[in-house]
């Protein structure tokens, strides 16, 4: 990880001027992301900076990957994330569309009289209410853009978290695999000893077969662990958007040690609420619904009101020109349905907002207690279990020296020590994953559910459903 720091700096320098791309709100997303992670994001839009981004990825891949490097690669190289960026383009297009006046309607009708002569009726009408709607529509579209930006930033945070979790899983499994190899080594030594005992005529064939069973079983478990490592690598390849020769990366083989102190609980909930991108999305929805309610109140009954010019050419060729208007009369439907719907939608989104905030607070507390539990487990294993197992090996060695313990017991004790080592590695991995989950919350995103790693573009929790258009 240390070695990669200059590379990371290189990445930030190379992508420092990324704001120059067609913006569409991406700068705001970058700002949001930069408040949450040191990794840079870049939207491939056919600029020269795309090449810099690709070069940065290549450079990062040439070094041992730690969590930070992997996150940086994913943020630059994950194609799903690039696809999510297009949401900004879509929202921006909506805004453009919202600012345009509805096209006027030109109406022409001709009537042919018996015995010759044509009566022409021409009218050109414009939905004059549209003039009032444009600013409203624009406000709606602008609000929708805010939501889209929060969603995109959320996708970045999700991806970063998923990459972190995947790297920690891979490191955990790799490190545990190394330990499992020593278990096989121990089983192999024990089997070797039984073979020698058998060759000397000192044990039965049955004893030999039983010890071989232990050995073969250990080998089989090792095979399973190796497959697991391969699968976790593939998962990372997918998250990092890597294929072909790019998949030959090396992961830092050891999990980092725990930090000495745990982040204090004070203010964690508030921080998660304040920085919540999920809540930002819901807030934009509330704003949308409020705006819709504002529109529905005066215009609920009057969907459109046309105003224009009508001309009529009589058969005799004379023209009559005059204004034309058509307005729905609010007699039966005076807009009560539309208002009620808009109000219900607003209320719903407000309730969901509160529910979401409550859930975020709960998730923060859960994530923190899970983090503390993991820390306690790591500490316990490190301070109690591992020294205990190590001391047992040393003591068994003494017993072995005194011919008070068999070599098999000595090997078994060693295997117990290794098993405690595996427990430790897994607990340490669990700690880092728990920390990543908590940080995801603090960075404004509710994890899909603890432990499952979803694709970056998966839909969010209930409050954050996509805007259903307008």
């Amino acid at each position, binding site marked *: 990880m240390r070695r990669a720091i200059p590379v990371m700096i290189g990445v930030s320098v190379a992508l420092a001027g990324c704001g120059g791309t067609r913006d569409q709100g991406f700068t705001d997303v970058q700002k949001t992301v930069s408040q949450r992670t040191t990794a840079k994001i870049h939207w491939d839009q056919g600029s020269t900076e795309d090449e810099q981004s690709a070069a940065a990825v290549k450079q990062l891949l040439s070094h041992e990957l730690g969590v930070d490097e992997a996150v940086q690669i994913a943020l630059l190289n994950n194609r799903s994330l690039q696809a999510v960026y297009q949401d900004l383009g879509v929202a921006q297009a909506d805004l453009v569309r919202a600012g345009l006046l509805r096209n006027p309607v030109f109406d022409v009708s001709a009537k042919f009289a018996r015995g010759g002569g044509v009566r022409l009726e021409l009218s050109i009408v414009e939905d004059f209410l549209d003039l009032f709607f444009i600013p409203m529509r624009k406000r709606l579209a602008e609000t929708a853009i805010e939501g889209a930006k929060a969603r995109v930033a959320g996708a970045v945070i999700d991806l970063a978290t998923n990459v972190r979790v995947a790297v920690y899983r891979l490191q955990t499994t790799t490190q545990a695999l190394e330990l499992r190899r020593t278990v096989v080594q121990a089983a192999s030594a024990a089997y070797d000893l039984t073979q020698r005992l058998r060759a000397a005529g000192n044990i039965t064939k049955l004893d030999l077969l039983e010890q071989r069973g232990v050995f073969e079983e250990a080998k089989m478990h090792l095979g399973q662990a190796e497959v697991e490592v391969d699968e976790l690598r593939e998962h990372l390849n997918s998250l990092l958007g890597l294929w072909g020769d790019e998949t030959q990366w090396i992961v830092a083989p050891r999990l980092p040690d725990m930090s000495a102190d745990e982040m204090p609980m004070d203010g964690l909930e508030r921080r998660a609420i304040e920085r919540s991108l999920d809540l930002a999305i819901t807030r934009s929805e509330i704003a949308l619904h409020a705006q819709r309610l504002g529109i529905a109140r005066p215009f609920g009954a009057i969907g459109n009101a046309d105003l224009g010019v009508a001309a009529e050419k009589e058969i005799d060729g004379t023209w009559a020109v005059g204004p034309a208007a058509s307005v729905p009369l609010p007699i039966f439907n005076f807009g009560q349905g539309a208002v009620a719907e808009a109000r219900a939608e607003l209320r719903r989104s407000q309730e969901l907002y509160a529910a979401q905030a409550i859930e975020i607070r709960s998730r923060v507390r859960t994530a923190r207690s899970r983090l503390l539990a993991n820390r306690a487990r790591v500490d316990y294993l490190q301070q109690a279990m591992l020294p205990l197992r190590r001391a047992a090996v040393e003591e068994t060695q003494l017993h072995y020296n005194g011919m008070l313990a068999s*070599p098999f017991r000595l090997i078994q004790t060693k295997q117990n020590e290794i098993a405690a080592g595996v427990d430790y590695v897994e607990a340490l991995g669990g700690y880092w994953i728990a920390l990543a989950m908590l940080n995801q919350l603090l960075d404004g995103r509710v994890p899909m559910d603890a432990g499952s790693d979803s694709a970056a573009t998966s839909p969010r929790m209930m409050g954050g459903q996509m805007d259903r258009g307008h």
Partner: protein
Amino acid sequence: MAPHHTCFARLASLMLTGSLIMGADEAPKVPKVPAPQPGAVAEHGAAHADAKATAKTLPPGEPGTDYTPVVVPNGTTLPWKVVDGVKVFHLTAEPVQHEFAPGLVATVWGYNGQSPGPVLELVDGDHIRVYVTNRLPEKTSVHWHAILLPNAQDGVSGLTQLGIPPGETVKYEFTVHQQGTFMYHPHFDEMTQMGMGMMGMIVIHPRNPKGPKVDRDFSIMLTEWAIKAGTSRPDTNEMMEFNILTMNSKAFPGTAPLVVKLGERVRIRFGNLGAMDHHPVHLHGYQFKVVATDGGDVEQAGQQPETTVLVPVGSTRAIEFVADAPGDWAMHCHMTHHIMNQMGHGLPNMVGVDAGDLDEQMRKLLPDYMTMGPTGMGEMAEMGMKIPENSIPMVGADGPHGYIDMGGMFTVLKVRDGITTYEDPGWYAQPKGTEVVTASPEELRRDGIEIDPPPAVPANGTPSAPAATPGAAMPHEHQHH
């Protein structure tokens, strides 16, 4: 031995007299007793004790005048005082920190700070009073094993007396009317208390010894313990696997040697209060006679010559011989497991195993690993490998000719000419020309000894299977055409 015979005859006639008196249903006619008799003696009224009652209670026997005191290797005799013609003793049953051999200390139970308890040394006809204080966490009692005494004094908790509660002191009092080697031990929770080491020897000298004078009279209690290596308390739940075998609660190299001047007459008294094992004690360099059991002296005609005396559980044996051969003579239980210390059971049999690169493999995991015992275990102890603390799994001792790889019930009878004290004289210097040395080629040639070339696989001691090669010469038919 005529004197013994006479003694027996007298005893028999006394007993006969006693039963005649009983048969006549008369009050026992107690002969005039010089010493004042406390109440306990007055209770002599029932069973065989009547016969004893007719024997005299004599003034307290004094060492030097009435007897030559016993020598207790690694132990002591119990001090006493005379109060109104009665020998008064005090035994305190209590926990004791005991060293079995250098490297193994355990909390055991004993008497007066030691295990076995000090030897109770008496003379036939002594009237004794023994106070017993219980400093154990549970009740106890003292049974005077093979002593003929009034029933109430027999020390069987529940049967003849109340157990002595912790903190209390009781008094045993009786006159001894026999001579020989006996023992004392609790008769309450025997498995625990004897397993913890509570036992002691009783030596009763004859008032007027007959026969040749014994110069060196040794007293050795044999017993066995279950002390798991690395622990410091005997496991009294153990019934079979005893791993510390002791003489006077010491395991070799903790056992003190028996030092004797050349030509002295030696008696060795053995008692066995172990839980399960009889001990055939073998003495090197001598023939001896078993002269007594705890049932009394063996008549001379019945004294079979031996080199090994079997000391059964709950018995004593006394052997005698004249130490006429100088040297360091081993004396040990001949059960080979009884001359081992805490070495483990249930280990794989490594004899003959070709270790190959096994150690290399193992050291990747266990840097201190070394294959043990592929050529036998004789030299294991010498290697001085680190072992669990407070354990003596393979401990032996340096001897004058390398390492003595024995433990347990092993000691040395040191017979020397020209010594003036019985201090340990050190190792015996073999007279020049008597030592065992490598045979010279000249000697081999002279005596026609032909040595075959060593077998192909000497490392693991497995001969290259002669049976597998039909037609091969049998080992004893070596080809010298």
